[in-house]
C-alpha cells in the first residue's frame, strides 16, 4: 500500500487527528496528533489491510524552528518524533511524524503496541527530553541517571561545567 492510500485510510478513520501528508521529501510522511499517535498506531498494526507489525525505528528530532533569545536558548518551535513502520506480511512501509511544542513536549507512548519502542522512547527522552505519556519505565538510558546537564542532542544544548567533580569541557 502506498503512503497516499494509507493517509486516506487513516483520514477516513481518525479525521482531524491525522493532520497532513507531506510528499515533498524523498520519503513521504504522515503528520499526526502527538496525543493520538498510540490509537493510530494500534489501528495501523491491527487493521487487515495495513498490518504494520514492525517498528523499524523511532527517532527524536529537534526542529530548532523557534527563536533564539539573548542566551542562545531556543524559545518556541517544536520537537518531533518519526516512526518508521514496516509490515513484514504485506511488505510495505510508512513514516509517521508527530510534532510537539518545545516547552511541553508530550507524546503518547507506543510501547504497548510495539515493545521495541521501549528503549527507543527512552533514548528520545534522554537526548531530547520528549515525555512519552504512559511509558512504563521512562528514565535515562545512555546518560548517567544522575545527569542534570540537560538533553544533549537539543540544538541549544550547553554542556555543564562539571559532572561529579570531573570537568566536562575540553
Amino acid at each position, binding site marked *: 500500500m502506498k503512503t497516499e492510500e494509507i493517509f486516506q485510510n487513516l483520514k477516513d478513520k481518525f479525521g482531524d487527528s491525522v493532520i497532513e501528508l507531506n510528499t515533498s521529501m524523498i520519503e513521504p510522511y504522515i503528520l499526526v496528533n502527538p496525543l493520538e499517535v498510540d490509537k493510530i498506531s494500534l489501528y495501523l498494526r491491527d487493521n487487515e489491510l495495513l498490518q504494520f507489525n514492525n517498528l523499524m525505528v523511532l527517532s527524536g528530532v529537534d526542529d530548532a524552528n523557534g527563536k533564539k533569545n539573548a542566551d542562545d536558548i531556543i524559545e518556541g518551535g517544536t520537537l518531533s518524533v518519526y516512526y518508521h513502520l514496516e509490515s513484514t506480511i504485506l511488505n510495505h512501509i510508512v513514516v509517521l511524524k508527530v510534532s510537539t511544542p518545545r516547552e511541553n513536549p508530550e507524546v503518547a507512548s507506543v510501547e504497548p503496541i510495539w515493545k521495541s519502542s521501549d528503549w527507543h522512547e527512552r533514548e528520545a527522552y534522554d537526548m531530547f527530553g520528549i515525555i512519552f505519556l504512559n511509558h512504563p519505565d521512562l528514565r535515562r538510558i*545512555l546518560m548517567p541517571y544522575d545527569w542534570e546537564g540537560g538533553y544533549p542532542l537539543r540544538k541549544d544544548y550547553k554542556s555543564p561545567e562539571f559532572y561529579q567533580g*570531573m570537568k566536562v569541557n*575540553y
Partner: protein
Amino acid sequence: MGLLDKQFEDSNIVITTLDDLLNWSRLSSVWQLHFGLACCAIEMMAASASHYDFDRFGVIPRPSPRQADIIIISGTVTLKMGIRIKRLFEQMANPKYIISMGSCSNCGGPYWQHGYSVLKGIDRVIPVDVYVPGCPPRPEALLEGLLKLREKIRNESLAKKKL
C-alpha cells in the same frame, strides 16, 4: 643494572641493593588489569597475542584490581566510566601504574569538542605514568609505552619520592 654483576665466587650469593631488587622484581612482572574500553582494546589484545607477546615482559591480564599492578586505559572514557575507573584504580594495591593508551584517553581524541558524554583525558581522574599517542596506537607503540614504564620503575627508589 647492578644485580648480577657483583657475584661472589660462591655460586649461590648475589649482592645487590634493595632498590634494585625491588625494582627488578616489580618491572619484571607488571600484571595488568584486564580492562578494555574501545578500539584501542583490540590493539591491546593484539599486543598480548603471539606476534608481539606482551607476556615476555611479564604482562599477564588479571581479572581483579586487587591482583593488578598496571591499568592500561585503552579507549574512550565516558563520564559514566570515569567514576568507575577511579574506583577500580583505588582498589588496586600499591605500587600501581597507569598507561593511557590512545588519543581518547589522553585528551578526548576526536570527541574533544562535541563529545557531550566523553571525559577529555583520563588524567582528570587518575594520575597517568605513560601516555601512548595514536588512534589507535599500533601494538609496537604500546610496547614502547610499556618499555618506558619499565624504565621509570627501574629508576625508582625507596628513599626518594615516586616520580
